[in-house]
């Protein structure tokens, strides 16, 4: 089971600052292990973010994104107390959904 995401959401002026850290190996499929065997690709492909039930961002992700990827952006028209729901799916079909509340 995948580790939980770290989600930080905080009002800053008229917008909420949202930062999401997913815990994921983000293997490219191009690396080799110690014995010279290729390490299979294993990476997050999509990350969706909803605030108060509305989709605000949909990330599509490739292998050029770092291990334990961090995503951050701002959302207007939301308020403290709104629920943030983030959900990723990786290339093996694993998925993880976590929630936070805007501070």
């Amino acid at each position, binding site marked *: 089971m995948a580790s939980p995401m770290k989600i930080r959401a905080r009002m800053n002026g008229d917008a909420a600052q949202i930062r999401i850290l997913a815990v994921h190996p983000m293997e*490219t499929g191009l*690396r*080799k292990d110690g014995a010279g065997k290729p390490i299979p690709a294993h990476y997050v492909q999509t990350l969706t973010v909803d*605030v108060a039930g509305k989709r605000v961002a949909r990330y599509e992700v490739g292998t050029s994104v*770092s291990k334990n990827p961090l*995503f951050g952006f701002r*959302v207007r028209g939301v308020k403290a107390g709104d629920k943030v729901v983030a959900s990723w799916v990786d290339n093996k079909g694993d998925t993880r959904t976590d929630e936070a509340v805007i501070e």
Partner: protein
Amino acid sequence: MNNTRRTLLKAGTNGAVLASLFAAGILRPVRVLAADPRRAAFEATGLADALRGLSAGTPAESADLVLKAPDIAENGAVVPVEVISNIPGTTSLSILVDNNPLPLALHVEFSGGGVTETVARLKMAKTSAVRAVAQAGGKFYVARHEIKVTIGGCGG
């Protein structure tokens, strides 16, 4: 290596070649028309193919598209970048690393109050230009930044 895909990429936008491939039964349409239209762009091994996969054509330079990135990255495994689009009507942003084996790093679409900016952390195999592409009202814009990498981050 998936030879069918290579053939398809080489065929590019040449409809006649594609049609003949379909006719020959080499390509199954169901695979080509996958649910995610940008997956091919993510699997493209060259910058030109990746840009074509985004349908970005030749994007225009814009001073309203800001790409903040370091000039030198000591560790190519984690290179922080930030993209801010002040272009009115921006709907999506993409980030590409020119010299990576698979250049397209991420693509994000905003809706419902999402501000068109993003931070991300990239892997960089070697010194390269990084480019941000913004889509606004059917037009594409680009901003570039050269990053010198002292230790590559794509393994091997």
